[in-house]
């Protein structure tokens, strides 16, 4: 299995880098154009949350295997303020910044598996996996 791809997210241009890396890895994994776009879009949203709410963090892209299934896992990790209520953040339309919200329910719809761990004052880790069909 190839090594993880790690993209540091510190400012807006890093969002573009992360989603381009994601699209390239998706193609390499064997995903078609539609799934690659869903993956790239999910990365874009997660990376944007890092920039907007945590300031900096990283996106890790990992090819995962669960015989015989193969997939791509996006890990978004930051040491930001954390999310007060993950349940609220996972509801459509919820926002703490008056914008479009964290977009987390949307990201969950783009992938097959989605987990989120957030600790106030410690940071947030999101894992989103798309399986190859």
């Amino acid at each position, binding site marked *: 299995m190839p090594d993880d791809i790690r993209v540091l997210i510190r400012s807006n241009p890093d969002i573009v880098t992360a989603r381009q890396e994601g699209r390239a890895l998706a193609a390499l994994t064997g995903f078609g154009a539609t799934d690659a776009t869903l993956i790239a*879009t999910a990365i874009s949203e997660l990376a944007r949350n890092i920039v907007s709410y945590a300031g900096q963090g990283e996106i890790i892209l990992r090819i995962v295997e669960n015989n015989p299934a193969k997939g791509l896992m996006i890990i978004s990790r930051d040491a930001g303020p954390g999310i007060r209520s993950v349940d609220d953040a996972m509801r459509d339309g919820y926002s703490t910044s008056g914008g479009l919200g964290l977009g987390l329910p949307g990201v969950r719809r783009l992938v097959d598996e989605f987990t989120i761990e957030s600790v106030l004052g410690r940071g947030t880790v999101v894992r989103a996996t798309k399986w190859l069909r």
Partner: protein
Amino acid sequence: MEVPILKQGRYLIATIQAALSDEDLQQLRRTLLERVIQFRSRGVIVDVTSLDVMDSFATRTLRDITYMIRLRGADTVIVGIQPEVAFAMVQLGLTLEGVATALDLEEGLAHLEQRARNSS
């Protein structure tokens, strides 16, 4: 990467490239509005054919652009949203409410012409 803006008669055509950052989008919003005022443009086409991701920020900015230009009395059409991009937008829950869209540049221009005829 700056978005090239072409003046075609009464219209402006902005062609977005794939690696579009948030700054590029904000720059586009500023520049388009300036040009619409400068050239007294009647319509604007934003061609997103090359854009491979339309996330929440891109969607919101395109919607803002359309609303701002409308306040100047000009129309905006977004053309060339790729099928997989449209699919991702809907999954993500993004909408372009009140924003005109068309298949490609040609249909976008036809839409602007139609609007110009109806209002004259």
